[in-house]
């Protein structure tokens, strides 16, 4: 009986192994990409309504304007544009050879219908400054503005301003972006298995890629699959076993593993994230600007970069990512490690060094709380910051909150110090985190200063042109830096992992991230 059982198991094993032989695919140029973990869970490819969109969206639709890695703007569906000197109107000249996946032409008539869709949607603010659209000729439109919006090109280059085909959009209703998605992009939506994977197939008619891509179209890849894998180790093992070809985000922890695999490579892309330490300017002792400046200058960014992030990324010395021109402030406003200055300022403020290494004033020790969210990298960062503050005599006690609950805690206004980060690539982030009408959260620093508000209004609403906006934001940024409502810490990079035996990437990656611009030039080795 034992023998026959063994035989049965053996036979079953053989037939099983035969079944496991994968069926050959119809495409040779086929690539599978794992989405960035922070893009997991997008529920639809509806650019007008979705609160969250992933990288695949940029493959299905095109935008009027494309942004490059250096954050400059380049033509795409709009070949060129002119802005009136007073900022009250823009003229866009559209490409003439573009059509949607369903065969409908893309032309000037598309634009007003498309912009109308934004009204009343969650993304309405992106097109809010546009009063109306005038059709000049078949391929020229004029935006008449309610007020100047020098940020218009940035909005137009955003994935949320991807252009869907208006007729298909109206016909599909709520299902648009889920069961079908019609754009002008280099790939068409084949299947979307929500929460799991998205399969795209090449748009054979595509010949209007932005000049940032070498290949004008069609794309070299025939079938492109985007998978959602929330667990980093699983994604890494998929890449290692050849189950997928590229990971759009590899955590620093796995970089060592990646580098030990001969066929895998890591491509480092500039990130959009800044880690910083907000200080509550309404809570003692941080009501005193001297204490704030001291705490800011006690932070050793270089040491944190090496100790917490393994030297991957860059230090931050302003509130903005380095790629933004507004981060290029007068050097005297940059916030850098200066322990001597920190100690001197605390002495000046009346906080004298006590016997146990903690400063005191009027018999009270310099004890503060330091908040962080329950996430390994933030916990580690908080511990290093705690040590650095201790070195100048500030005793910080760490409190960890659940990542979904910490925002409510900030709204209580009871925080003193915190470590956190944001992800954004526009200078208007200063308005978001330091605006006097958003105290608690997002304004964790509880910063509300009349001079800053004045500069803020000027930057947000008083700029007519791009240059003016840049200058105004730089002035606002410099003033906020001079008031020390926060300490800048670190700018992470985005690590893209890929299989070098399968994928050939273009020499220079254009665009703000691995997106449609890059995918036009990517090839699979055969």
């Amino acid at each position, binding site marked *: 009986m034992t023998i026959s059982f063994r035989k049965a198991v053996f036979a079953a094993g053989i037939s099983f192994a035969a079944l496991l032989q994968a069926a050959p695919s119809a495409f040779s140029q086929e690539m599978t990409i794992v989405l960035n973990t922070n893009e997991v869970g997008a529920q639809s490819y509806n650019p007008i309504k979705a609160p969250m969109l992933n990288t695949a969206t940029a493959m299905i639709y095109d935008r009027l304007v494309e942004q490059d890695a250096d954050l400059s703007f380049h033509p795409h569906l709009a070949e060129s544009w002119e802005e009136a000197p007073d900022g009250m109107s823009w003229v866009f000249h559209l490409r003439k050879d573009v059509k949607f996946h369903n065969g409908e032409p893309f032309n000037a008539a598309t634009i007003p219908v498309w912009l109308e869709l934004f009204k009343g949607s*969650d993304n309405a603010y992106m097109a809010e400054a546009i009063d109306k659209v005038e059709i000049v000729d078949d391929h020229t439109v004029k935006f008449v503005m309610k007020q100047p919006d020098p940020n218009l090109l940035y909005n137009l280059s955003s994935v949320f301003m991807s252009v869907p085909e208006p007729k298909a959009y109206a016909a599909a209703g709520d299902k648009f972006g889920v069961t079908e998605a019609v754009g002008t992009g280099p790939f068409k939506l084949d299947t979307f298995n929500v929460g799991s994977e998205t399969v795209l197939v090449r748009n054979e008619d595509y010949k209007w890629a932005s000049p940032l891509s070498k290949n004008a179209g069609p794309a070299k890849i025939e079938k492109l699959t985007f998978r959602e894998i929330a667990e980093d180790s699983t994604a890494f093992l998929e890449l290692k076993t050849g*189950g997928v070809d590229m990971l759009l985000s590899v955590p620093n922890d796995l970089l060592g593993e990646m580098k030990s695999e001969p066929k895998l490579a890591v491509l480092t892309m500039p990130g959009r994230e800044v880690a910083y330490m907000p200080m509550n300017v309404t809570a003692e002792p941080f009501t005193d600007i001297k204490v704030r400046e001291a705490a800011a200058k006690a932070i050793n960014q270089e040491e944190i970069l090496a100790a917490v992030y393994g030297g991957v990324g860059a230090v931050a010395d302003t509130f903005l990512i380095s790629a933004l021109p507004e981060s290029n402030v007068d050097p005297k406003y940059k916030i850098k490690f200066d322990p001597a200055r920190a100690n001197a300022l605390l002495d000046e403020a009346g906080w004298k060094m006590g016997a146990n290494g903690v400063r005191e004033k009027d018999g009270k020790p310099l004890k503060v709380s330091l908040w962080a969210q329950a996430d390994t990298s933030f916990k580690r960062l908080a511990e290093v910051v705690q040590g650095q503050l201790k070195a100048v005599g500030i005793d910080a006690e760490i409190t960890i909150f659940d990542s979904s609950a910490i925002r409510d805690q900030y709204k209580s206004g009871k925080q003193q110090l915190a470590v956190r980060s944001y992800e954004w690539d526009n200078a208007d982030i200063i308005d978001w985190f330091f605006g006097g009408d958003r105290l608690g959260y997002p304004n964790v620093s509880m910063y509300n200063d009349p001079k800053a508000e004045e500069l803020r209004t000027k930057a947000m609403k008083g700029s007519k042109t791009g240059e003016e906006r840049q200058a105004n934001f730089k002035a606002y940024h410099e003033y906020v830096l001079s008031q020390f409502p926060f300490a800048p810490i670190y700018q992470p990079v985005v690590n893209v992992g890929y299989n070098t035996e399968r994928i050939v990437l273009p020499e220079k990656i254009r665009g703000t991230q691995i997106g449609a611009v890059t995918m036009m030039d990517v090839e699979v080795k055969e």
Partner: protein
Amino acid sequence: MIGYAVRRLLMLVPVFLAVSVVIFLILHLIPGDPIDNLIRIGSSPAQREIIAQRYGLDRSLPEQYFIWLGNVLRGDLGTAIVGQRPVSTMILQALPYSLALGGAALLFSASLGILLGVIAAWKRDGWADQLIMGGVLLGSTMPTFWLGLLMILLFSVHLGWFPVSGARNWQSLVLPVLTIGLAGTALVARVTRVAMIEAQQRDFVMLLHAKGLPRWRIHLGHVLRHALTAVVTILALRIGWILGGAVTVEVVFARPGLGTLLIKALNQHDYPVVQASLLMLAMAVMLGTLLGDLIQAALDPRVRTAMS
């Protein structure tokens, strides 16, 4: 029997109401605001009010509860706040994956667990028993998350037999089923073994022995049938558990399903989705228990009479 089934069904009504209150309250009492996840950088404070109104988040808690309960009873699970899609569609999309995984895992634990339990009871205190019980202990104590990664390392990375993750074909179901199923197998094997050993000491078994029936026939034909009542109850209880317990496994193997849906919604404080998925899981537990009771009653007349 029918009267018994109806009585058991009616008992579910108060349980359902209690569960719905608990699910609703837990969610609304923990800190975290779903609108925070909707407001993107750059949108105005007025936008916040509009969104709160749209989802009724500006109303009082009892009001929100009754509106929700009323909608649920009419079969309307609402619209996901962050997902912006009907919750029922999202659940219906996830459900087949969960059912496939849960069903296969249940089948796997039932067949292997009963087999192992019978062998262990048959060879009681022998090496086979000790080996099986040792394995059972290991299987039931290993965290599923860890076990899942080990499975991937062994079967996908080293042996290359199965895909690492995903839900494209039946091959991708094997490792998740093994991962969830092993813990269940351990449980079923233990219960089967104990129930069989207990049944062996009953008088009727002694009588059968005295009548001279072969040992294997007594074991498989009578003792096992007696012991199965307990095993079936355990299996039915596990229906709910497997759907809920699949959460970590779904994350490790990047499978869509109720668990993944729930975790994502929890992180985003998407109340309608969390409420609906928790309600689904709670209902699976309730129906599993009901099913267990009914099967038990069908197998064992004593249960039916005790209830009436």
